[in-house]
């Protein structure tokens, strides 16, 4: 037996992982104190999750400044990274947690079932997400992925009264399990070829010795399986089947959470793995990403057209957004171009902007649809909304136009960035496909707008917008417009996003 006392852990810079610790503390307090005390006053559970995310955001901002001054670095013995790319992702994730918690509180209070667990799960999911995006090791990444996924399975099934929610949770669990298995097998094969799971060491290993052809096949299969695992998680076509069902069945705030936090985490992690670990094989995976991206764009935008349920529509729209983000990854695969780094920046900006946008959109859906039954979420629920409530209608219109990529909204800034990165490396065909799909997708958003503005409502009953939801939706719409008018605000921050931590 090994002598455990001889084991020396890596030195840990506690301050550098403080956002993670803050989230963990918040989750533990909610769970522990929440279960030991009587029911807290209304909204307190939610507000403590909000406070936690605010602290985590503040700590990330402090770290951001440190990274700006001292440069990016590796943490915890090289298993985690501290760079702007990870921090931007963390901030986006925590901001999404903040918004979703606010919306959830109103949603659950309406049903009289507010409880601490759901917020604790948001926070643990956020921990998993933050670990994913800042991991420099495939095994650590897997840990983060599982932490995130397990929380999401529970969240999807958290509405115990609805069978649809149960079904969504189970479906997500089974397919998510598949994805994890693919991912893990890919990691194993890659490890078999290179003898390491550290992203940076993988690159060194792959570039420093001449791999024999047999090994290269195994390596490519490994990379392919990792990609498939990610493709399931971010719902790229043809691995997107679960998304509409799960998005539809899950309670709407949870859907917002999956579409924002889940997507951000998986996409940023995907980006990091491929750019840091496998740049030497970018000729191989670049093509695959191109095909996946084009397929995802087409499926997401075309299939959305025939949907009648608003959550399904938005599920497909989120699929097409993932396709858009992959356009940036494809750009980053052109290693011989000086502009390959643009792709990385574009993806970072896109996910950060999209996170707030999608939470805002689903926030309005939560408020309007009241519950997650399929009738309540049909497009009919939105009929005449803007006539009865012009402000709510206008806010939703801003979100929809932003999703469609109209100028003067954050959605345009995001799209412009990825298209620019694609054009800069000469991927014109993908840029054109993406833009054409954006037009097709716009039809879906127009349909929702038609319902809101141009159809007559069945009822004149007004939808009440509770206080916290109001704050969340207001924050999201302000952010969407602010970045739309002044993109410099985010572009200033992200100019050196491409400098990933390597030592």
């Amino acid at each position: 037996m090994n002598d455990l006392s001889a084991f020396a852990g890596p030195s840990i810079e506690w301050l550098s992982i403080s956002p993670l610790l803050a989230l963990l503390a918040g989750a533990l307090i909610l769970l522990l104190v929440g279960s030991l005390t009587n029911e807290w006053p209304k909204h307190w559970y939610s507000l403590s999750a909000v406070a936690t995310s605010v602290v985590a955001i503040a700590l990330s901002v402090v770290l951001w400044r440190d990274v700006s001054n001292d440069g990016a670095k590796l943490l915890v013995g090289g298993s985690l990274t501290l760079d702007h790319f990870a921090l931007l992702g963390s901030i986006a994730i925590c901001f999404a947690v903040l918004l979703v918690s606010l919306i959830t509180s109103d949603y659950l209070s309406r049903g009289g079932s507010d409880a601490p667990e759901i917020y604790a799960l948001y926070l643990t999911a956020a921990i998993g997400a933050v670990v994913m995006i800042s991991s420099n090791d495939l095994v650590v990444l897997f840990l983060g992925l599982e932490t995130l996924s397990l929380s999401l399975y529970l969240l999807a099934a958290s509405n115990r009264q609805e069978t649809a929610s149960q079904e969504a949770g189970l479906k997500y669990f089974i397919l998510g399990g598949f994805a994890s298995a693919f991912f893990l097998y890919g990691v194993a094969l890659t490890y078999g070829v290179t003898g390491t799971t550290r992203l940076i060491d993988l690159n060194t290993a792959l570039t420093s010795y001449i791999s024999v052809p047999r090994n290269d096949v195994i390596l490519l299969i490994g990379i392919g399986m990792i990609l498939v695992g990610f493709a399931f998680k971010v719902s790229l076509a043809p691995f997107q089947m679960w998304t509409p069902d799960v998005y539809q069945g899950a309670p709407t705030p949870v859907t917002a959470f999956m579409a924002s936090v889940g997507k951000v985490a998986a996409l940023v992690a995907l980006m990091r793995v491929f750019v840091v670990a496998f740049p030497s094989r970018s000729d191989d995976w670049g093509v695959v990403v191109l095909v996946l991206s084009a397929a995802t764009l087409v499926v997401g935008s075309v299939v959305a057209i025939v949907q009648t349920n608003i959550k399904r529509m938005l599920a497909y729209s989120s699929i097409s957004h993932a396709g858009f983000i992959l356009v940036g990854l494809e750009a980053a695969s052109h290693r011989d171009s000086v502009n390959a780094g643009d792709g990385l920046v574009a993806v970072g900006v896109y996910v950060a902007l999209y996170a707030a946008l999608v939470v805002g959109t689903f926030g309005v859906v939560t408020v309007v649809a009241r519950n997650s039954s399929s009738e309540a979420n049909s497009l009919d629920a939105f009929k005449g909304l803007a006539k009865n409530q012009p402000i709510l209608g206008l806010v939703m219109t801003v979100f929809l136009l932003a999703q469609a990529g109209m100028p003067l909204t954050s959605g345009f800034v995001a799209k412009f960035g990825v298209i620019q990165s694609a054009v800069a490396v000469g991927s014109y065909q993908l840029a054109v496909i993406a833009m054409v799909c954006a037009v097709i997708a716009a039809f879906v958003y127009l349909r929702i707008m038609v319902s809101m503005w141009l159809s007559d409502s069945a009822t004149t009953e007004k939808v009440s917008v509770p206080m916290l939801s109001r704050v969340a939706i207001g924050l999201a719409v302000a952010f969407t417009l602010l970045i739309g008018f002044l993109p410099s605000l985010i572009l200033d921050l992200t100019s050196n996003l491409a400098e990933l931590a390597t030592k």
Partner: protein
Amino acid sequence: MIAASSQVSSFPILSALVVLPLLGSIIVALLGKSRPEWVKLGALISSVTTGALSLWLLAAFKSGEAGFQFVSQHLWISQWGISWHLGVDGISLFLVVLTGILFPLVIVGIDPHHNETSYFAWMLLLQAGVMGSFLALDLFLFFVMFEIVLVPMYFLIGGWGYDQRVYAATKFFLYTMAGSAFMLVGIIATVALAQRDLGVITFDVVKIAEGASFSTNAARWLFISFAIAFAVKVPLFPFHTWLPDAHTQAPTGGSVILAGVLLKMGTYGFLRFGVYLFPQAAIWARPVLFTLAVIGIIYGAIAATMQRDLKRLVAYSSVAHLGFIVLGTFALSSQAVTGAVIQMVNHGVSTGALFLLVGMIYERRHTREIAELRGIQHVAPIFAGVFTVVMLSSVGLPGLNGFVGEFLILIGSFESARWWTIVATVGVVLAALYLLWAYQRVFHGEPDEANSSFKELNAKEGLLMAVFVAIILFTGIYPKPMLERIEPSVNSFIEHVEGRTK
């Protein structure tokens, strides 16, 4: 179009022309809830002030100068080399003035009937977008304005239009957006390629046009990407199918603006961006564009002849007229391009007025079917008289504005596009045919019972139409002031093109 002669004005009049309607729109939207009775007044003040500013711009514009005047430039997105860069020259001047004048007329003259607040708010937002499109000298800014215009127009058609309004509005939005999707890729590629020559990333159209040189192949692809967007907007055959629907279903105010200024964003875009940035590619693509323009002229005329709906007839006549403008634009001779610029304004005035008149007919009779109307001349002679003048201006009768533009286009195009011009001339005859025939059916004959109570123009409508008729007559009889302001810019534009294609 030489940047060197641009002058900096103390009062940012061009920015005011864009920002004022935008502010007006926000104020109107806010007033709606608390003080609905002030909404129309607010819209009026905002649009009249903008109109007055545009007239002041016309007065202060130095004729005989070719370069951009009143230039205002502020850095907007430094990372991407994007600035708020506005400027006006002879090519855009009259389009800006037209935009300034047309909107207050529409706001005064046409009653939206319901939801005044949002109607006026969208209208003013539309004005801001159109102004911005005509003034922008930055590719990004132009794209933003070009695209943002869709939103208010979509809501105007969808919210205040006729039976098929949702279909028409959606079609309009998607068609135009599809066109500009290609343009966005084109713009980004233009900037990326120009960066290699210029050394800096910039969206400044003047800098790119003067400083960057594109390979023949690249320029062609880029030109195509721009041309698709503009061809949809103009609209050029075969991309025109959204137009009859949009026009017919739009409320009168929407139609007037759509025909008056919105379509000009396409023809203007061809000149300012397509040809200016890629002269060689434009000349390469010319035969195709000439052919499409001429097909548009003939097809639009024939289709107009066969329409039963008066508004649809005017819509198809637009397709024909815009064919002439495209023909003139790509003939690339001084006369033809001057003619095209004048014709852009003329078409805005005369077709705008025609849509207004058709709108008035609809208000009175609740039908636009030509077969339902008869003998209006007897009951409403002044109305018929105004209609005649406007119609003849659209036909291109000498002495009225339409003649000046069409004549210059045909003369100027004869050199470089002889056979196309000859065929296009047939279109002039056809225009007389369909408009006169329509006039005959609607205004001649004995009025039946329904038509005998047709009301004469009232004072407000009379004043409104008087403005149009005055412009029609003035431009037709004395086009010199207009030519003096347009020609220097056009000449320098032609020089630029010739210098690039030698």
